[in-house]
């Protein structure tokens, strides 16, 4: 058989459209993670893939890491960041770790590229679609896809949110608020246990940013999270910006909130910027991940580090992506806070 060269012309979707941002922005990261020397947590059950990658990570002796990877529009298109810093074990230079948000389940080039990045960087997989707080059963098909993804990527952490997004088969594409009742506690605990059994590893649960609370919600949010840790063995992803946003929007003391969290369970921290909006004359903070971390949130972060220790931290920035240098500065500020916390901890021991 002879080869027949195609005589027709292929029209290709331009990369600039697929990236959905100016070409000059390509390669700029959105989410920066800072990885301190604290050892990663060991998954809750068995010898999972996650345990292997965590150990490998520790053996490299790397002290810091910063995320240089992002996915726009829930993973539709991806842009990789700077090249690996090498595996020299130089503990003084920050290394890079991936942070991913969203839809990599179908496959395609984004997943292939991320799997390649995984060779050089540890990843933290952050889910938004499980809807752990839904009264109805978890979507087992979605859970199976998550397991497939986690098996393939062997991330350092897997996290989800204390929220819900689906009812009656309809998905709302938002992290929606829950009433903190005994009924909700049973629902979320059962779903966290189910997820951990399917993934064969510990899940980290993130506190949400809230714009309303329910009249009947007798359990305070940090106590609710504490109860979930006790019942399921899950860890916590403490989003310091979310605590600030929720306390401003609903009333509450962010320091008391941090004090009420079980320190040993806090395994990862998120930082982000928020928008300040006016709603009918009342200030409402919106967790939009589109600006630098606010001063009040840095202060709260320093307090969180003093209480939880130098926990791996991710800066979320996924709208209005800034120049790389802006993000590096943010990461640098986080590293400085972390070093100060570490020095204070050493001083107290000495």
């Amino acid at each position, binding site marked *: *058989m002879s*080869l027949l060269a195609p005589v027709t012309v292929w029209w290709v979707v331009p990369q600039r459209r697929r990236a*959905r941002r100016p070409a000059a922005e390509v390669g700029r990261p959105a989410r920066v993670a800072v990885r301190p020397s604290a050892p990663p947590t060991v998954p809750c059950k068995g010898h999972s893939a996650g345990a292997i990658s965590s150990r490998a990570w520790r053996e490299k002796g790397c002290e810091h890491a910063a995320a240089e990877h992002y996915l726009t*529009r829930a993973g539709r298109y991806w842009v990789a960041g700077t090249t690996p810093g090498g595996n020299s074990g130089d503990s003084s230079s920050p290394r890079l770790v991936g942070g991913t948000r969203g839809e990599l389940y179908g496959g395609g080039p984004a997943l292939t590229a991320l799997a390649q990045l995984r060779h050089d960087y540890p990843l933290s997989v952050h889910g938004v*679609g499980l809807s752990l707080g839904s*009264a109805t059963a978890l979507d087992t098909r979605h859970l199976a896809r998550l397991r497939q993804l986690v098996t393939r990527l062997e991330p350092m952490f897997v996290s989800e949110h204390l929220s819900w997004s689906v*009812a009656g088969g309809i998905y709302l594409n938002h992290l929606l608020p829950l009433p903190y009742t005994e009924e909700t506690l049973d629902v979320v605990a059962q779903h966290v246990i189910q997820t951990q059994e399917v993934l064969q590893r510990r899940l980290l649960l993130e506190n949400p940013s809230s714009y309303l609370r329910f009249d009947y919600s007798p359990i305070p949010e940090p106590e609710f999270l504490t109860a979930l840790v006790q019942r399921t063995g899950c860890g916590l992803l403490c989003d310091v910006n979310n605590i600030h946003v929720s306390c401003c929007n609903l009333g509450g003391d962010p320091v008391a909130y941090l004090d009420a969290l079980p320190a040993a369970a806090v395994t990862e921290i998120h930082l982000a910027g928020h928008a300040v909006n006016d709603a009918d004359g009342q200030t409402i903070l919106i967790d939009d991940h589109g600006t630098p971390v606010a001063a009040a949130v840095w202060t709260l972060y320093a307090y969180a580090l003093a209480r939880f220790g130098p926990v791996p931290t991710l800066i979320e920035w996924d709208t209005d992506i800034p120049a790389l240098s802006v993000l590096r500065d943010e990461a640098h500020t986080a590293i400085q806070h972390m070093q100060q916390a570490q020095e204070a901890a050493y001083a107290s021991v000495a």
Partner: protein
Amino acid sequence: MPALHELQTAFVQTMFATEAPALVAAVAGDGLSPSARLQIYRHHVLTSLTEALQATFPVICRLVDVRFFRYAADTYIREHPPMAPCLSEYGADFPTFLREFPPCRDLAYLEDVARLEWALNTALHAEIRLPLDPTRLGEVAAEAIPRLCFACDPSLSYLRSRWAIDQIWRVHQQEEEVASDCALHEEDVCLEIRRWEDEVGFRRLDPAVYAFRAALAHGQPLATAAEAALEADAAFDCVSALSAWLTDGVVFDFTVAPDMEENNSCKPL
């Protein structure tokens, strides 16, 4: 206080339709009305889904203007809310919606342009399969060749339109608004859409080649595909077409349909 399930059902209703009184009653005011607080969530739900549709259908958005697109998307989202957790799977029936949406029913080409954009979106997210090793076809007996059926790259799809949707798409890739150099007249446009490496694209096919490849892609046996092509063009060169089909990297597996005179369908792959 309603049970969690009732509360969440009322929440969904409030986001996409009318405010559920039971939900409003369950929300604490804290200095801002419960309705205003629910509006913050509704705003995010609707705008984020609109942005998702805009990202999947950028040419439609340019064709009808972003303001009309948002209006159409708002109606679509309320009538067809997402039924799956993956955003990339949202919008499959948006082309049909556009055909039936009264304010743009006169734009006859809109549905097909939307189908092209949806096919590109699907191709981008399709699972990657390794192409077939062509030497494996050596094991097929000569008399069984007409009964060959193929399993194809999941990114591959075929689209036929009576409008020049490929030209419309291309004209709207340019950054600036350009005077339309795309004359709108009816013609038979046959497109093949697929992904290779990390590129997604499409090309126009000759109607006979289209008939041949679309039939193969739908799992029809080689003989049936050849008949369809010859019907479109009596001079169709089956050998060259098969060669091109096999060297394009779109086939990852094959089966041989049972040898039955009446039954041309293939076993499931």
